[in-house]
């Protein structure tokens, strides 16, 4: 069936470097994408979202890029900090569906 998946299960970066977390989706009808951050033992927290009529959206130290041609989504974190260490999930939605479909997650480890 349709699914959202991730290329890398674990990403290790040095503090201060930029991080890029990738996500592939397969449902061409998806029109909304969202990134969540989940720290150990806590519920996911919203980071940033993007609709399919956009290619790029920026937040504070984060940027989401959407490439609809290849059905690819990425989350870029600038100047990665130890507090960014967490599991990051992408999720998608499409018209008529009332719930997000989540990918399997990528663990980001920031080395001091």
């Amino acid at each position, binding site marked *: 069936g349709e699914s959202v998946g991730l290329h890398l299960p674990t990403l290790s970066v040095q503090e201060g470097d930029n991080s890029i977390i990738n996500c592939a989706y397969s449902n061409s009808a998806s029109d909304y994408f969202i990134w969540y951050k989940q720290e150990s033992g*806590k519920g996911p927290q919203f980071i940033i979202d993007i609709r399919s009529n956009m290619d790029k959206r920026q937040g504070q130290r984060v940027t989401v890029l959407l490439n609809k041609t290849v059905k690819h989504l990425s989350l870029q974190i600038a100047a990665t900090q130890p507090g960014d260490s967490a599991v990051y999930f992408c999720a998608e939605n499409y018209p008529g569906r009332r719930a997000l479909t989540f990918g*399997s*997650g990528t663990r980001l480890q920031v080395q001091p």
Partner: protein
Amino acid sequence: SQTIHQWPATLVQPVGSPLSLECTVEGTSNPNLYWYRQAAGRGLQLLFYSVGIGQISSEVPQNLSASRPQDRQFILSSKKLLLSDSGFYLCAWSVRGLLSYEQYFGPGTRLTVT
């Protein structure tokens, strides 16, 4: 501002015992409500969602059920727990409407079935 509560935070239950997890939302009306389960080191699996009182949609067949007795209350239940029911249970809400997809998650309940 809106807040979402879940309790208990942790729970250890024997196989075959009943379960009741509660979720309440404050600061919003008529939300969509969701129950997810997360196995250790895994992604989120949608279990149930609700668009209104008494309206429950089940995503996967399982040993669990959900109810929404009030607008901002969502309950996850089981009559007899299985070992495979262990996991991290997350409740979430979203604004009802065609354009709003963002979901806000609660702190979760860690369930261990022994």
